[in-house]
């Protein structure tokens, strides 16, 4: 099968962009723009889409400006950024491990974050606030910090434990499984020991939520994306070659260790920032790269398309949770509830084609 490719240059860097992947990403961007506009327009107080656009460009009356720029834009931007970060992170890990089951979840990054966050919620939790969001200053400041620290510590541990005269993809993934199991068990232990109110708060965090997220969560994520995305895109060529296997890649002149280290730094960094901002929106990093792969029909999960679709999925979930569903529901559950059926449909379609 030949794929049409188009050369694309930025300064000294250049890529061959497969035409189909480019088109899919562009289509995804259009969908994303529509969803963002809707997300900004709809809510308790509807603002017409035309006014949203005008407000974003600096016009609009003060009321609309307040609603769009102050209330809704930060949360929407966090959704876009978190989705993009998780999508890219998932694409990188799946490419790195050459396995659709690998993702920041399987490597333990998300679970390290979850363990940190749950530890703070349960051990510092004296607020006795049942079934809702975490409250109290210690928890508000402490939970994202603990999550971030947990994720980074897990990533460092993962790399250190996997290093044995170099990193081997399969060994890394297996070590990640061991770490994941231990951390999940630790989290469950905390949950069983906790009072039911704290367990309920922890459950809410564990499912990922976009509620009341603002620039203080968005900015670190934005900086992380600005730094790590170019690294990831520059790795694309080496990663393509690495699909042939480590030995072939080395034979073709890829600097394997450097590439692997940079891939891991980018993947883990993005996941850590995203998870500490919005909680483990687990399914995004897992499924978005596969959806993008089924759509682009490439040889590995595409990076740009994964970012775009990650953002689409999370913004869509935010829109649904805020506007359509009548009771509060963590966005992490909604991403699963819309992502999973779509993946199932894609699979059914692909399989029918194969067998026809």
């Amino acid at each position: 099968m030949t794929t049409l490719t188009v050369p694309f240059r930025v300064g000294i860097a250049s890529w061959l962009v497969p035409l189909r992947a480019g088109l899919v990403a562009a289509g995804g961007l259009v969908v994303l723009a529509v969803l963002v506009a809707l997300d900004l327009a709809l809510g308790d107080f509807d603002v017409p889409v035309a006014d949203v656009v005008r407000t974003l460009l600096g016009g609009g009356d003060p009321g609309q400006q307040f609603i769009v720029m102050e209330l809704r834009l930060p949360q929407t931007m966090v959704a876009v950024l978190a989705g993009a970060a998780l999508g890219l992170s998932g694409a990188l890990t799946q490419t790195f491990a050459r396995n659709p089951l690998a993702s920041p979840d399987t490597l333990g990054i998300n679970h390290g974050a979850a363990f940190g966050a749950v530890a703070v919620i349960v051990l510092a939790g004296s607020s006795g606030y049942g079934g809702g969001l975490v409250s109290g200053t210690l928890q508000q400041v402490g939970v994202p910090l603990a999550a971030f620290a947990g994720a980074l510590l897990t990533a460092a541990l993962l790399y250190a434990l996997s290093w044995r005269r170099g990193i081997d993809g399969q060994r890394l993934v297996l070590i990640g499984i061991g770490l994941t199991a231990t951390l999940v068990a630790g989290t469950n232990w905390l949950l069983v020991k906790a009072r039911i109110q704290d367990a309920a708060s922890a459950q809410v965090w564990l499912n990922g939520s976009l509620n009341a997220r603002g620039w203080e969560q968005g900015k670190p994520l934005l900086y992380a994306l600005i730094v790590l995305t170019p690294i990831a895109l520059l790795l694309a060529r080496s990663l393509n070659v690495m699909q042939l296997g480590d030995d072939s890649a080395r034979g073709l002149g890829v600097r394997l260790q450097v590439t692997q280290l940079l891939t891991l730094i980018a993947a883990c960094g993005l996941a850590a920032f995203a998870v500490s901002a919005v909680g483990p929106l687990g399914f995004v990093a897992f499924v978005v790269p596969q959806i993008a792969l089924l759509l682009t029909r490439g040889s590995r999960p595409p990076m740009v398309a994964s970012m775009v679709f990650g953002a689409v999925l999370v913004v869509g979930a935010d829109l649904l949770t805020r506007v359509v569903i009548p009771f509060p529901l963590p966005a992490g559950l909604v991403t699963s509830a819309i992502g999973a059926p779509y993946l199932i449909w894609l699979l059914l379609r692909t399989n029918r084609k194969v067998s026809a």
Partner: protein
Amino acid sequence: MTTIAPAPTAAPATPRPARRGSLRGVLVLTGLLVLAGLLSLAIGSRNIPLSTVVDVLLDPDGSDASTIVHGLRIPRTVLAIAVGVALGVAGALMQGHTRNPLAEPGLLGVEAGAAFAVVIGIYAFGVTDLTGYAWFSLVGAGLAAAAVFAIGSTRGGPDPVSLVLAGMAISALLYALTQVVVLRDVDTLDAYRFWAVGSVASRGMDVFWQVLPFILVGLLLAAFSASTLNLLQLGDDVASSLGLHPMRAKIIGVLGVMMLTGAATAACGPIAFLGLVVPHVARYFSGIDYRWVIPYSALIGGLLLVVADVVGRVVVRPGELQVGIVMAMLGGPVFIYLVRRTRMVRI
């Protein structure tokens, strides 16, 4: 294996002969399993000397020791062994059929299906006893696995990658639905969180008899699968040119995984990690021949679960820690150590 450069490492030591399974290994593991079983009967919040355990086993005399052993400890020990064996075998089958070292039995959607059914049982039907949970989770597990199977199959039978993706998708969907119910109702969460960590405690023999037929059928299917799995590792085309019917072989294998995992989850709740890790450990001892991997996985699975259960009873006396938690907390580091120390046998 990756090295920094094609480094001229010290002259390769004389290559160790590849490990292979043997009857002796099976016997040693069986002996260890029996020993662990006896320890499990003896150790608990009230310790009973091993000699007394053997006495009351042979001759129940109505003493306290006899009541404890027969009433409490035999059911959970038997259950732990059965569930460990089932999950170990299911893991080996799953990794063999998907040819993916990350596959675990839960991937077929079985555990998510069971969890959802149990939550529905608690929330909508007010089920509170473990026997009731077991029926609900059997039904849920079966339905979910059937859906995954239908989605993941092409006309040529189940396709490894599609099966895994379909399992992921169905599991995530059911997990989300489970969470929706749990988040909306704290009482359900309270009952569900103890089921969800997985435990062999306080189940009577009735739960064991309830799931035993499913486990036996599953083991039978696994036995049929063992030799065909060796051929399937070569790829479908080679396998069928060697006279195998890949689709039939895969359906038998996947049905086996369904039965085994469904029964195990019904009995003890979701016990993560065991099905994923045990086959790796088994392959380390037995090599890649599935006719050995499967019995080794069975015995190591049973051993791991019983030992974890005993440890869980000892560490936080007089209370106890759920076996799922203990196993992952102990097994995680041990697994990491094994992975670091050795060249794992690749699938």
